[in-house]
């Protein structure tokens, strides 16, 4: 269940290992309609990050995703509160083009607050390939932003077909498949193999999907996997524990926990 290695031993004992920081590349912020969270605020999330040795969280606020009237300013506030620990994805809601224009202007107002865009085609009920996203994706390509897209097997909004099309259309974007096309693991592997700019986010793969991490690693994709937790949804300690009990090497664990994220974030001044 947990094989003893230098890395697993250190995290099992102390929840930390020198020279192995953790970058959580898929988080959120704030309250949410379907769940009671014990720790939804930026301050509380950073407390959880401290406990699990998470150096930085890249997040999209729930308010920005689901309350257009609040938009992305809540994310900016959180980053300003914890500039060394938090960076935001600018959430793009395709149902409100005027808000997209408004929110994209935040990239100029707060260039150090954002590392990318977050698309949630399933929740917004607009396919990831729809023209409504084009202005935002164009900006992402111009500015070399990361693009985190919620992806799920079987979805007509963000399933394998949409993710493959998106990857083919935007070779200049680091495209992070949020949840790695959950359930459509073979398709996720194929897309990641076909497109070197596609990354596989492990958020929500670490619950009852044992074997996925090994599948990705065996496919030679350890250098494309990213640690993620949906914080404040899921405990980073739990996600870390899952990674410890996956049958992969310590070298792969280093890549997942920090190496791959450090590579992606190096394009932003002052990071990692």
């Amino acid at each position, binding site marked *: *269940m*947990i*094989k*003893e290695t230098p890395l697993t031993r250190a*995290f*099992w004992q102390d*929840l930390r290992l020198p020279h192995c920081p953790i970058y959580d590349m898929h988080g959120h912020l704030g309250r949410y309609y*379907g*769940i*009671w*969270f*014990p*720790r939804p605020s930026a301050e*509380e*999330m950073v407390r*959880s990050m401290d*406990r699990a040795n998470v150096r930085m969280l890249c997040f999209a606020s729930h308010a920005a995703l689901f309350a257009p009237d609040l938009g992305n300013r809540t994310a900016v506030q959180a980053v300003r509160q914890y500039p060394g620990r938090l960076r935001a994805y600018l959430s793009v809601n395709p149902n409100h083009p005027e808000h997209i224009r408004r929110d994209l202007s935040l990239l100029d107002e707060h260039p150090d607050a954002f590392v990318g865009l977050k698309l949630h085609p399933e929740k917004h009920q607009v396919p990831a390939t729809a023209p409504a996203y084009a202005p935002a994706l164009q900006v992402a390509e111009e500015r070399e932003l990361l693009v985190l897209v919620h992806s799920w097997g079987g979805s007509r909004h963000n399933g394998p077909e949409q993710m493959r099309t998106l990857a083919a259309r935007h070779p200049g974007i680091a495209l992070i498949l949020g949840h790695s096309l959950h359930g459509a*693991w073979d398709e996720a592997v194929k897309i990641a193999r076909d497109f070197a700019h596609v990354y596989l986010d492990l958020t*929500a793969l*670490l*619950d*009852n*999907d*044992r*074997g*996925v*991490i*090994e*599948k990705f690693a065996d496919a030679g994709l350890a250098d494309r996997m990213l640690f993620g*937790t949906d*914080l*404040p*949804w*899921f*405990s*980073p*300690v*739990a*996600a*870390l*524990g*899952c*990674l*410890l*009990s*996956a049958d992969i090497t310590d070298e792969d664990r280093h890549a997942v926990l920090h190496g791959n994220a450090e590579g992606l974030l190096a394009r932003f001044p002052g990071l990692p």
Partner: protein
Amino acid sequence: MRFYDCNAWVGTPANGTLFSPPTAGSLVAAMDEAGVEKALVWHIAQHDYDPLEGNDLLSRAIAGHERLVGVWTMLPTQCGEIGSAEEWTGRLIEAGVQAVRMFPERNRYLPRPEVIGDLLSVLADRRVPLLLSLRRGATWAMAYDLLEAFPALTVVLCDLDVWPADRFFRPLLDRYERVHIETSTYLADAGIEAFVERYGAGRMLFGSGFPECYPGGAMLRVRHAEIGEAGRAAIAAGNIERLLSEVR
């Protein structure tokens, strides 16, 4: 820290998996690797194929493995498949089995007092824990109805929704003192700490969800939960040992 896993299975599922299906022997080997002392185990055939033949398969599979304690799947008594409630429960205890699961939807019966009231009354009297899997057919409405009818039943809500389900389970914990939750897919950030603050550490049980879950998730969370050593030890092993010691 000692771990007693209350939620693991063995056997080969009907459908494909990403992991190698565990035998009793490979489960014990995995427990050794992880430092898990004992496990409450069922056989996947009890769900995928047939409860009764699955129960037999389980008993044969874990025979000789003293660290594995069996869980049987129940059926209603009306078709004469298991004898009377008293007879079946007596056979269960005689076989060293210490807990029960049920899959009403899959086995096509209604989980109502008219159907399983005789059996649940005996289980409640004898304090045999009933594990209700939210991943395998149990619903929150079912749990609420069962507990309203049998408030003294010892229930372990396991394989909880991956979306943190406090709004579902907290009313049950508030109302019924013998309801517990299992950890394998209770992944809420700071969820263990918040739970223990409200209910104490006596009503949460360590379960790995093995082989479907990466067991390190629940193990690391329990080991480093910010609830004090006594609370961690209770969740890791003490609570399930206490419940099983009450079976009579």
